[in-house]
């Protein structure tokens, strides 16, 4: 009898306090290797903080295990160098740097996959000398995703990649994520349920800093469950 494969990422009893607020109150969940796990919840329940907590960008307590090794005591840059790519909410491109400089900054010795990035985002090659701050929102999102994809990743943390994008671009970004997910595991924070249904294999739902549901993307077809977990106003 074979045991179940160990998850790629194990988050156990993760707590984060920010500005006097107990934002994460013992979050625990797994991310299986392969495919996309979506982290869902209403605004302000701690989804972005969970990603930042995994990456060590905020002070946290609890255990974070990547491929069997604890990373919760490591500095952010060391966690990233273990193969964790990060696409932040609001893109966070370096506005004063050119597109090429944004990518060059992310590239690590000898492993940079410029061919892959230029294949996925041919527009970025054309705009290499343009300052990232002058790009449109969609183009900045491409830079943010490209930076994360430039190095081989074991896990991608992607925070609201379709936020603020025009509907046509949402579909384009979803298509890109679909291609990426074929090769790399991702933990995706996303408000757009149509995108989640298209991309995710498993879901984790947060509410008030706690995990309230773990399941598969098929659970999102249950309207009553979606209404209970995510609220009426949630974008579908």
């Amino acid at each position: 009898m074979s045991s179940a494969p160990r998850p790629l990422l194990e988050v156990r009893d993760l707590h984060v306090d920010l500005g006097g607020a107990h934002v994460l109150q013992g979050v625990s969940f797994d991310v299986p290797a392969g495919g996309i796990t979506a982290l869902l919840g209403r605004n302000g329940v701690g989804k972005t903080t969970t990603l930042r907590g995994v990456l060590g960008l905020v002070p946290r307590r609890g255990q974070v295990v990547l491929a069997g090794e604890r990373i919760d005591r490591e500095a952010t840059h060391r966690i990233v160098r273990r193969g964790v790519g990060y696409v932040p909410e609001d893109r966070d491109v370096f506005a004063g740097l050119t597109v090429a400089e944004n990518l060059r900054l992310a590239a690590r010795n000898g492993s940079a996959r410029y061919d892959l990035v230029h294949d996925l985002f041919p527009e970025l090659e054309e705009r290499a000398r343009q300052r990232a701050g002058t790009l449109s929102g969609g183009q900045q999102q491409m830079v943010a995703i490209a930076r994360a994809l430039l190095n081989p990743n074991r896990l991608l943390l992607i925070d609201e990649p379709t936020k603020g994008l025009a509907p046509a671009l949402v579909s384009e970004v979803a298509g890109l994520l679909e291609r990426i997910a074929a090769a790399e595991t991702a933990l995706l924070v996303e408000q757009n349920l149509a995108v989640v249904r298209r991309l995710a294999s498993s879901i984790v739902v947060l509410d008030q800093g706690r995990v309230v549901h773990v399941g598969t993307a098929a659970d999102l077809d249950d309207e009553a469950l979606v209404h209970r977990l995510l609220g009426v106003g949630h974008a579908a």
Partner: protein
Amino acid sequence: MSTVVLLTITGLGLGAMYFLVASGLSLIYGLMGVLNFAHGAFITVGAYGAWFAETKLSGIGSVPLRFLAASVVGLAAGTCFATLVELVLIRPLYLRHIEQVLVTVGVSLATVALVEGIWGSDPKFYVLPPWFSGTTTVAGAYIPNDRWIEIAAAAAVLVGLLTFLRFTRYGLIIRAGVENRAMVTALGIDVKRAFTLVFALGGLAAALAGVLSGIYFTSITPERGTSLLIFAFIVIVIGGLGSIKGSAVASAAVALTQQYVNYYSTGIGDLSVVLLLAIVLLARPAQLAGRTA
């Protein structure tokens, strides 16, 4: 006309020293968020390091060569001191801004007290090459030769810093870090190495300002670093926190304002700089938040 030329070039000489202090101060704040009150101590260590070395290098017969060698020692002392301050005092207090301010103020006060304790508070004088005390005639104005040295040194540092920031990997990290330090670490980069490098570069430029101040003001004193630092703070606020080019322009503006107002009125040059700061802040309040290296 000759008065205008004299005031302008002398003002630029003073501005050169402001820039040398402000450039490091601005990068340190822009990248690390550290308001480094110890920067004046780097000036003092550089100035006294060069003076002390000069007294010990009497074996070098050539005055220019001796002064050059002493200056190199002063710059090395300022750079090493700044690096040590970052590694030993600032790094353990990373993100604890109040404690950083307290520690850097403490370093500043302790350095002045230490220098006074060892060498006294009387001015010290460099033995300078004779050319330094001569003049050059420009459009009828007799310009002290040392002004050219100060302006040339600041111009070289400006070009060197911009080249470093534009064309090197660490320059790229610093420019990105000034914009968003957390995102730089999220790309797998150990930004603390850049912190140390920026402190070292800031210490080098400040030490150079210390040595040059001994030429411009004809002497060095333990408090010189503190008085230059006050104007450097004004410069970085006017020029934009974290901006090297802004620091260069603001240094010239502050020093020229000081020179002209001091000449055409009596003794309110320093006050005029404070007024200039107030005008800039009223006109462009976002200047305090400005960040691009």
